[in-house]
């Protein structure tokens, strides 16, 4: 509230609780979202300073689906925002897939000045954010969404390489893939390597060989000990709780990979959070 409003409004309005809007303030919703068909809906009530009228309102915001920011701004008259809720319709994102921040701003576009943040946190179709009431939470706090992804099936003689998308943070859980070797006599050993897009900082290597004309399955995860199964493949111990930033990669490195050796598509599990950029 500012002093002008206190000086001019009538006695009943002094009883109105809420966030004061001076007439040139706006509500801005910014979202980061990874799921298609998500619509963010803001609902609330606004008390007009001019006549004390209580206006229920509903605004619709469409997020991007590639984890990048999308913003919408809604003009408000002079008065008080008494309550506000944010929910999702159109899809059923899980916690970790749709992150919303609601600010009060003054001005337009990139030049707008954020005066205050009313809400910030993950929202789903069943879990709302509400002003007043909801705490301001950053996107990396709490559990993310558990995802199981099928990666790119590389062409023969190529390695697996999966990249953490822009705007995401992953915790590696496990990866499974099959390597089919051609008839060339050679001992292939392999490792799952984690790098920052340039330099590797961790790897999990097998301790046995794959020879010619074999189709072996490899599973990398927090199994404690690496061991192989004759003619089947192996379980390879990989670090638990390895957190990967955007641009980091999970990839295989296979020694003596032959022209006809072929990795299948990796299936891997990660915990994902949105990391606004």
């Amino acid at each position: 509230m500012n002093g002008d409003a206190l000086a001019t409004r009538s006695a009943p309005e002094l009883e109105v609780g809420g966030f004061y809007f001076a007439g040139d303030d706006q509500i801005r919703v910014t979202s980061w979202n990874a799921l298609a068909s998500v619509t963010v809906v803001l609902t609330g009530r606004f008390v007009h300073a001019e006549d004390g009228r209580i206006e229920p309102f509903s605004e619709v915001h469409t997020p991007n689906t590639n984890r990048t920011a999308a913003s919408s701004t809604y003009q408000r008259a002079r008065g008080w925002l008494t309550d506000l809720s944010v929910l999702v319709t159109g899809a059923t994102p899980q916690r970790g897939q749709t992150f919303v921040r609601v600010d009060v701003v003054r001005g337009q576009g990139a030049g707008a000045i954020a005066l205050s943040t009313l809400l910030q946190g993950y929202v789903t179709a069943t879990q709302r954010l509400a002003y007043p009431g909801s705490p301001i939470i950053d996107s990396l706090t709490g559990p993310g969404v558990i995802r199981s992804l099928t990666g790119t099936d590389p062409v023969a003689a190529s390695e697996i390489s999966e990249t953490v998308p822009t705007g995401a943070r992953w915790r590696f859980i496990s990866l499974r893939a099959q390597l089919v070797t051609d008839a060339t006599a050679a001992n292939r050993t392999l490792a799952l390597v984690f790098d920052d897009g340039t330099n590797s900082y961790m790897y999990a290597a097998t301790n046995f060989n794959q020879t010619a004309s074999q189709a072996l399955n490899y599973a990398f995860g927090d199994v404690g000990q690496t061991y192989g199964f004759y003619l089947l493949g192996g379980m390879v111990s990989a670090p638990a709780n390895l957190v990967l930033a955007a641009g980091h990669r999970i990839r295989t490195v296979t020694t003596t990979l032959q022209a006809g050796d072929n990795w299948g598509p990796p299936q891997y599990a990660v915990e994902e959070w949105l990391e606004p950029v």
Partner: protein
Amino acid sequence: MSRVRCKTCKGEYDTTTADGLPYMHVCPPVRGVKVRRADGSRAIVAPDAVLADDQVIAEVLLTRKQARDETPDPTNRDERGIPRIKAEGRGVTILADDVVPVVGLPDAS
């Protein structure tokens, strides 16, 4: 959802993952090995082209020519304000749209 093949690395992938999120393909790097040759010169060669008298110095990763990178670039947005992908590379070939045919499984829906 489509099944596509990257024209740069020839890798195949679905454009949407099973949980409904877009899959963002990035071409894998090309692996090379930096070696010191018997005559003292240095070279970066394919891992299977290391000669018997080469001394291996290090593994190197090289960015693939015209690599495709489908992760979004927040600094490069289209007219609707949606970030474009970082690099088109040579593009993709669509292998199948929407449906993966089920063959030889009469009881499958």
